[in-house]
């Protein structure tokens, strides 16, 4: 995304308060102004970011290694990687994998179906809908799904009417797979948004070249299409992974916090819902989540660099 923005101000404009406005001042003063004015102008932003982003992040890392009395300890980390909290981590990673790979594939198929379709209206409609739906997780989404698939939901009742009872097969919303099912609602549109530029980057001439050399449609996809798209698809899936791994509101509202996922456990611990005096264990889990997300983002950076090799 950052690469798309064109630089309107040229490189030569970086000298603030140019010389013309300061006639015959001492060089020291001028230099002070040259450094001082930009520093002053950027101060509010950087101070705000340090206070609102830096300090909380440092606090999480710091408190992860402290006892409740403030002494250094590794006990929190040990507790966070064993027992029920280990299960929470495993569940979170498993759910993030499921809700990045499946919606990732479905998103590519959907995006391809729309892009190769002839209907411009459809394309426009799906583009707008994807933009809106990808932004839409959380509480409202949850209750929409409860209205549809909850125990008294409209669709559940329809299924009852034709003799199917999903609940008797364990297909219920406040479960691991139920939450995954709901996540797809914003993950698929997100994938459509992320992958469409890459699909558009597939040049018609590549396909024609392959056909001229006698390649079948299958061989074109096998040797050209998929290899070119693969980094973009992986990149999109990594974004989906991060988005699902960090999600809290949807799972919490849907399950009331009974499902063992790392973000929900943090919420319980920090609220003191479990055992008081264990707040710092919550920070240890948070630190673990930060590590996972950092790895995800590094991989994303690598994959993105690879993706830009062929596309644009």
């Amino acid at each position, binding site marked *: 995304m950052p690469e798309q923005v064109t630089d*309107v101000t040229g490189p030569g404009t970086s000298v603030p308060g140019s010389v013309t406005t300061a006639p015959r001042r001492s060089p020291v003063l001028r230099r002070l102004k040259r450094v001082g004015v930009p520093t002053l102008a950027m101060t509010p932003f950087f101070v705000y970011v340090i206070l609102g982003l830096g300090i909380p992040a440092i606090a999480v890392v710091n408190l992860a290694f402290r006892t409740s009395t403030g002494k250094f300890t590794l006990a929190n980390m040990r507790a966070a990687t064993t027992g029920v909290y280990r299960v929470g981590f495993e569940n979170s990673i498993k759910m993030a994998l499921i809700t990045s790979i499946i919606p990732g594939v479905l998103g590519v198929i959907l995006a391809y179906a729309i892009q190769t379709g002839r209907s411009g209206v459809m394309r*426009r409609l799906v583009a707008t809908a994807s933009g809106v739906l990808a932004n839409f997780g959380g509480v409202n989404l949850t209750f929409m799904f409860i209205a549809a698939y909850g125990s008294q939901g409209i669709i559940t009742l329809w299924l009852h009417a034709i003799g199917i009872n999903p609940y008797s097969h364990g297909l219920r919303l406040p479960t691991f797979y139920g939450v995954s099912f709901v996540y797809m609602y914003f993950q698929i549109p997100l994938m459509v948004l992320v992958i469409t530029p890459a699909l558009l980057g597939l040049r018609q001439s590549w396909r024609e070249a392959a056909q001229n050399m006698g390649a079948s449609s299958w061989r074109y996809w096998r040797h050209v299409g998929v290899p070119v798209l693969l980094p973009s698809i992986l990149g999109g899936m990594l974004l989906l992974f991060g988005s699902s791994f960090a999600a809290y509101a949807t799972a919490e509202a849907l399950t009331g916090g009974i499902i063992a996922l790392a*973000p929900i456990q943090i919420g319980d611990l920090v609220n003191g819902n479990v055992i008081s005096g264990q707040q710092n264990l919550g920070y240890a889990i948070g630190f673990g989540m930060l590590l996972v997300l950092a790895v995800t983002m590094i991989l994303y950076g690598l994959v993105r660099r690879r993706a830009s090799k062929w596309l644009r």
Partner: protein
Amino acid sequence: MAAIGAMGTEMALDQILGPEASASRGRRRPRFRTWRLVVMLIAGAYFLAPIYAGLKFALQNDANHFSFFAVKALPTEPGFGAAFWLSIRLSFVTVVLSMILMVPTTIYVHLRLPKVRRVVEFITILPIVIPPIILITGVLGSYPLWLKSSPYLLSLMYVILAMPFVYRSLDAGLSAIDLKTLVEASRSLGGSMFATMRRVILPNLRPALLSAMVLTLALVLGEFTMASLDLWETIPVWIVNFQQQDGHVTVAASMLGLIGSWVLLTLIVSLDRSQSRRSLRKTGGL
């Protein structure tokens, strides 16, 4: 999670709708048509079913008959008024703070510090990478009590959460105008920096400002994680707390929130489009 989506919106929409989209028109086999139809039908069913069910459920009474009782009952439910008022106050403060902080910063970076742009860009992506749940626990673990006991702490944090949207909107808006020329023209006509800002830059930036504000508003009105952990009952928190009382009222409340945010977001998406069309025309004319 929502955050990345909005970034994608700005990036992808033009391309999805762009003229090259029709370039792939070629021979088409009927086999492909069926395949596409099946995909579209399944997707349509998956995405429309909950919307339909939500609407139907919100407009039903306990005997499953059509009724507006849930929507009518909503404003008088205990706690709803207070939650609504709190959400409105928080969104107002957040939008104002966010604009005061980000507009001058972004303009200054564009005008005078293009080298810092990469850094600012990177920083404003961070709130997407660090989940709100971790941020709020960090805040609760490190800030003094007097600050934590004020609801406006949430506004302060929402400014951070909104940063990716706000910065990207403003950045796109500023890139679309020839900022340097405009400022130089205004300055050489004797306009002060303040007058330049008020009478030249901001009017040109209006669509970007509007979309930044609307995105922030939608974010604040829908935010659950931070508010619930900070123990303030905003609308989303109220909806979750109230769900045991009456399912129809809860669904009605979330459908209203949903329709509201859809209208807002669709507005931005179309605004985005008209803005990029305008900038396209402008560059074509130059």
